[in-house]
């Protein structure tokens, strides 16, 4: 299933003004070796994507060409429309890879 076909909208919180949110979510437009999205203030940002119908997510692939900017922690939440940075602070079972 092509990811582009099933995503209806994307948005983000705390990204720099020139960020490309679709590229940051792997929906095309990313330039190899270039940073598509960077936090505007602080050390975190949040990306959101809405799907046209219910889907199953199978994998997550991170590409961060600049090691200094690379994320060290990613948390995934599903079916949450009202979400802020406070909500992301909850502890969770960690999966180390």
């Amino acid at each position, binding site marked *: 299933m092509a990811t582009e076909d099933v995503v209806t909208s994307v948005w983000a919180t705390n990204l720099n003004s020139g960020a490309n949110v679709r590229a940051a979510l792997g929906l095309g437009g990313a330039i190899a070796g270039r940073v598509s999205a960077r936090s505007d203030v602080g050390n975190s940002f949040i990306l959101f994507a809405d799907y046209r*119908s219910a889907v199953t997510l*199978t*994998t997550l692939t991170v590409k*961060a060409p600049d090691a200094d*900017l*690379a*994320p060290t922690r990613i948390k995934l939440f599903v079916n*949450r429309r009202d979400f802020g940075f406070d909500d992301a602070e909850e*502890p969770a079972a960690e999966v180390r*890879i």
Partner: protein
Amino acid sequence: MPRSRRRRCVFRHLIPLRALVITPITHSHPRHPLQEIKLSAADAAAGKTVRLKAAKFTAVHTITVYVENESGEAVGVQSIALGVKATEGGADVSKIKKVECVPLLSYYCCGRCSGMDTSRRTPTQPTHRRRHEH
């Protein structure tokens, strides 16, 4: 559904209902992430694919990805791509005999709300107080 979680929708006036949205119930506490992934900077720089726990990531309508650099410095990515496939074995709506309305905030009732579910209230959460004003 356990009896303690059942809620009725009560409207102040008669109103026309134009749509009914049935939202799948997520598998974990709504404030907790379903999966947290730790990466080394080198992993992320090289490009890293993580297999998600498929049983938890079914019936997804909205995905929220919180991204952090724990060193405290700015964080940036080229992409965080999510592999997607159609959810199989979805609910057969034609077999639903009864629909009950469950308020979205039922887990966060704070004691002054009618219909409070005391077994699940979390009255001291500051985020909750901000969201649920009286």
